[in-house]
């Protein structure tokens, strides 16, 4: 363990740690642009200069490319180093336009920060700046090449890290240009990360440009709810609208990056057509009126038909809290059934995966990255867990063999950022005792015997869940011996349902009475339910999600519920067809327009109280350990805590 002294502070770091990281570990930030912990060292920008006063090397050195060694005495404040950094930042700024006021990066710009930190505040260069033609890069990303300082972060990410081939660096010297061969949408499903990784405003998020500044945003640590990988994000909100979503570092899940779906697929959160008002028999009503009516309707149905003919239906979209309380509602209703899945196949596979995985065989992301072989079993990875493709790519680059088992017909195979061998069955994968091998499959709709066969191979396992919170759904299904709704309906065991964020297919609905429906989006259920209770999305609620490997992660409310202010009209543009008057009502109001939504589990808790039950708190009993989850931490694997039993 090398011991060195940085600015009079003794530091001990792991071998191979750079001086820059060593300094960061004691709270000293050395200005840098090209250096990024996730990327290979380029030492291209020359900004991270420090002076070594004593030790094995002396003089001005680039701290990002210099491994910490015993006996080093480093000064980040030596006049010579300060002068060097000031000159470097001055030359990096030579061609940079003075367009910060009209640049969407302004306020969250590393170049702004380090220009100030580097001591460059007055322009001496009076010559012409070099300029470029920008390219159209698709609907996600705006290109503004004049701002480029040639740190090469974008191309190192795009080609080396993410395996894209349609974006790169052209030209040489003062003509260096980062772009495509011809204009067109970027092909990589990870292209949005260029926004996060560019230290200045060359790449900005076109879907949220010019809406707000960094200091306007409300944001909180969140968890992406698009697939069961559970990538860490920060939704940036302004005036009740999710403007941008950026990646948040979690080395145990997504590293620094997120996929484009996580970043750009946010329209549904801001949708003015989202159902936001509680409704009773088609008419808008107060929330408590709707909850009362739902409780009354449940009680009446139970009295007339018996509690066992009623099912409370959730889905993998619910938070863990919602899933836990859902079962308590069923209890309060006198022993109604509870369902977390509609489809028997999905439930069977999801449940089997949750049962088979334990602390030893459930792969960590590191296990994927360091695997010697990886088998993708009939899996459309870019659909079911895109970020894992980058972990597989890391293994591939380190020499691992990748096999795609029975997956040639899947559409996304062409987009996989690594080469693979196609085989027909799992038997054709040379296991060799399973050492350092990983099998990745989607658990939903898989035969439990096949999953068990995979588990017996000795390889580490990744079983992607159907839906963002599938693992939690499987645990609760197991705990409450819940059945899939389709089976219960087929066996005529259920006559009526109360739905919470459930996507019950039309075919099942025709045989069912829907007593009440709570959701944040429209669907087939809504049309059949006489009572509608609007709920909050993950962006507007606190909650817990459990990802494919059993990692429980906390997400926080990042903004209040309500209609986005943008374009708000008299009727809160809630109707696409009806004509509206031209001015908002001139009446006093204290509530947020469209802000009646409540968290699903809280709606359930209110139902329980109306049904005569005790007030509930979701994370109690065996779940108590998750109450103190740190939203900014790495999450905890519940397998480790014995919660999966």
């Amino acid at each position, binding site marked *: 363990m090398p011991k060195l002294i940085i600015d009079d502070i003794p530091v001990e770091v792991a071998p191979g740690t750079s001086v820059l990281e060593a300094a960061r570990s004691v709270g000293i930030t050395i200005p840098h642009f090209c250096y990024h912990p996730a990327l290979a060292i380029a030492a291209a920008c020359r900004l991270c200069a420090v002076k070594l006063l004593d030790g094995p090397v002396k003089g001005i050195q680039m701290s990002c490319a210099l491994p910490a060694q015993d006996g080093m005495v480093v000064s980040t404040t030596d006049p010579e180093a300060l002068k060097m950094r000031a000159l470097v930042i001055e030359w990096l700024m030579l061609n940079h336009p003075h367009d910060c006021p009209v640049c969407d990066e302004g306020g969250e710009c590393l170049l702004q920060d380090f220009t100030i930190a580097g001591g460059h505040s007055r322009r001496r260069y009076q010559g012409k700046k070099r300029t470029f033609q920008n390219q159209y890069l698709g609907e996600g990303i705006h290109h503004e090449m004049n701002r480029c300082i040639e740190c090469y972060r974008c191309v190192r990410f795009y080609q080396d890290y993410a395996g894209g*081939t*349609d974006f*790169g660096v*052209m*030209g*040489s010297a003062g003509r260096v*240009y980062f772009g495509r*061969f011809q204009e067109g949408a970027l092909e990589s499903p990870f292209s949005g990360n260029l926004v996060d990784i560019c230290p200045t405003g060359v790449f900005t998020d076109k879907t949220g440009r010019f809406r707000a500044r960094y200091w306007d945003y409300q944001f909180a640590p969140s968890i992406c709810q698009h697939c069961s990988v559970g990538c860490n994000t920060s939704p940036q909100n302004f005036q009740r609208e999710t403007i941008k979503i950026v990646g948040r570092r979690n080395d145990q899940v997504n590293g620094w990056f997120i996929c484009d779906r996580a970043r750009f697929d946010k329209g549904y959160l801001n949708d003015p057509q989202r159902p936001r008002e509680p409704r009773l028999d088609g008419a808008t009503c107060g929330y408590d009126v709707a909850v009362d009516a739902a409780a009354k309707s449940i009680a009446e149905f139970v009295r007339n038909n018996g509690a066992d003919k009623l099912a409370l239906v959730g889905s993998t979209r619910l938070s863990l809290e919602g899933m836990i309380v859902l079962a308590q509602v069923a209890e309060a209703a006198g022993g109604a059934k509870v369902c977390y899945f509609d489809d028997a196949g999905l439930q069977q596979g999801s449940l089997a995966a949750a049962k088979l995985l334990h602390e030893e065989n459930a792969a960590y992301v590191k296990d994927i990255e360091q695997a010697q072989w990886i088998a993708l079993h009939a899996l459309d990875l870019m659909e079911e867990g895109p970020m894992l493709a980058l972990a597989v790519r890391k293994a591939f680059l380190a020499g691992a063999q990748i096999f795609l088992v029975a997956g040639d017909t899947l559409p996304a195979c062409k987009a996989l950022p690594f080469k693979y061998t196609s085989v027909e069955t799992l038997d054709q994968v040379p296991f060799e005792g399973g050492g350092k091998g990983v099998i990745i499959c989607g658990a939903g709709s898989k035969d439990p015997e096949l999953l068990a066969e995979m588990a017996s191979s000795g390889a580490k396992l990744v079983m992607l869940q159907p839906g963002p919170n599938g693992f939690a759904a499987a645990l609760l299904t197991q705990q409450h011996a819940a059945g899939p709704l389709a089976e219960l309906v087929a066996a005529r065991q259920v006559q009526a349902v109360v739905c919470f964020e459930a996507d019950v297919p039309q075919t099942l609905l025709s045989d069912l009475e829907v007593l009440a429906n709570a959701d944040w989006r429209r669907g087939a259920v809504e049309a059949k339910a006489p009572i509608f209770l609007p709920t909050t999305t993950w962006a507007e609620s606190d909650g817990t999600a459990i990802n494919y490997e059993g990692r429980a992660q906390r997400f926080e409310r990042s903004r209040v519920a309500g209609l986005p202010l943008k374009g708000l009209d008299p009727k809160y543009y809630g109707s696409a067809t009806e004509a509206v008057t031209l001015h908002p009502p001139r009446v006093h109001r204290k509530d947020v327009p469209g802000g009646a939504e409540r968290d699903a589990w809280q709606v359930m808790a209110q139902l329980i109280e109306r049904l005569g039950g005790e007030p509930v708190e979701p994370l109690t009993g065996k779940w108590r350990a998750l109450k103190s989850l740190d939203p900014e931490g790495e999450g905890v694997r519940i397998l480790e805590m014995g919660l999966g039993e």
Partner: protein
Amino acid sequence: MIPETLKKSLQARVASAITAREAAVDVMKELQAHYGWLTDEAVQEAAALLGLSPLQVEELATFYEMIYRRPVGKKVIHVCDSISCWCADCDKIIQYLKDKLGVGLGGTTADGMFTLLPCCCMGMCGDSPAMSVGGVPYGRLTPELVDEILEAERHKV
């Protein structure tokens, strides 16, 4: 479209390389010789031959100064403007070339014979100021010598 014989020989060149990328410069030069400059079409053809994306070929093509991504004259004059030649007053030679050819840097003469390009060091610092015409290097340039060289190059096939 390149002729089948050229395609075959380029495929053989790529096949003999340890990695396809390493044959990229040879392939680009051959295609440039065929078209006169490396056309957009040629970049796509090179990409197909090398198993790279057009962008990846473009990255290499735009890096090397002797791969021309715009039309050039029959012979390209690369005149050095790096430090050793600058010490030997290459500015005077460059100005003389501009005046004589009637073009600026990057321009092609009206008869399509010469394109004048500045270049960085050709490794001829000992013979500065230096230039190359159609790939032939010339050193210790004077205006008189430039006249002679251009006259000779104009008539050389």
